């Protein structure tokens, strides 16, 4: 099982930012207008708009127009084929296994 490296790059880049993760939490729960999102953060509309574009390019959200508004919604289906979901879950497990390894190794170092 190999992960598409370009997609992984875009995904990690998109999620490596706290504001973008927060935007994702909101748009996964419900559709939000970009202007509605912008008032939630202490940054300019343009800055929030840029974050939304990064998430859109990574395939994490989709935008549609409704009159003068741009509405953003988390695109769960597009990002999460069963394969990508299992890969995402695999990352959670790899983290846990690395922490077990760290825990038991730190001990053997102490004992030496």
């Amino acid at each position: 099982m190999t992960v598409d490296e370009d997609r992984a790059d875009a995904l990690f880049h998109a999620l490596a930012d706290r504001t973008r993760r927060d935007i994702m939490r909101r748009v996964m729960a419900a559709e939000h207008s970009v202007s509605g999102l912008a008032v939630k953060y202490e940054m300019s509309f343009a800055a929030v708009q840029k974050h939304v574009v990064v998430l859109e390019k990574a395939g994490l959200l989709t935008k549609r127009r409704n009159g003068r508004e741009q509405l953003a919604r988390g695109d769960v289906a597009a990002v999460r084929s069963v394969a990508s979901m299992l890969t995402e879950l695999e990352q959670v497990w790899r983290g846990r296994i690395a922490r077990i390894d760290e825990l038991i190794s730190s001990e053997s170092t102490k004992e030496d």
Partner: protein
Amino acid sequence: MPVTDVQQDFDNLTLTITADFAAPVERIWQVYADPRQLEKVWGPPTYPATVVDHDLTPGGRMTYFMTGPDGDKHAGYWEITAVDEPSSFSFVDGFADLEFNPNPALPVSRNIFSFAEHDGGTRAIYVSTFESAEALQQVLDMGVVEGASSAINQIDALVAS
């Protein structure tokens, strides 16, 4: 990295991960049997876990919450279904409210952890199964931050795989 094999079974929505640890089986069992050790490994650094109840016996429960960077808390529980110390245990992992009442609206995963002596260390096999693709999706939605931050911390692992 101790992970030696990953099997994704799309039809049965099952993830099987094999890891080799440089410690005896009893030591790895202790990680799960001791709540203070379990909480060190369960949550990622950004979402540390706190284990509250811990009864690793058939029918017993383990309850925990994870605390996010903004102080947000997310609770979960394990319902232990089988224990064969120190070789294996099985449990249902689900979401709960902050008083640890299971949330029946959210899906659960069924897990089997087993540990066997291998080359002087321990081979651990983790099997996690979901009922449906929707269930898996919901679990990931709930843990989207955990998944993302853990994934980011594990970029080396991904690149190496």
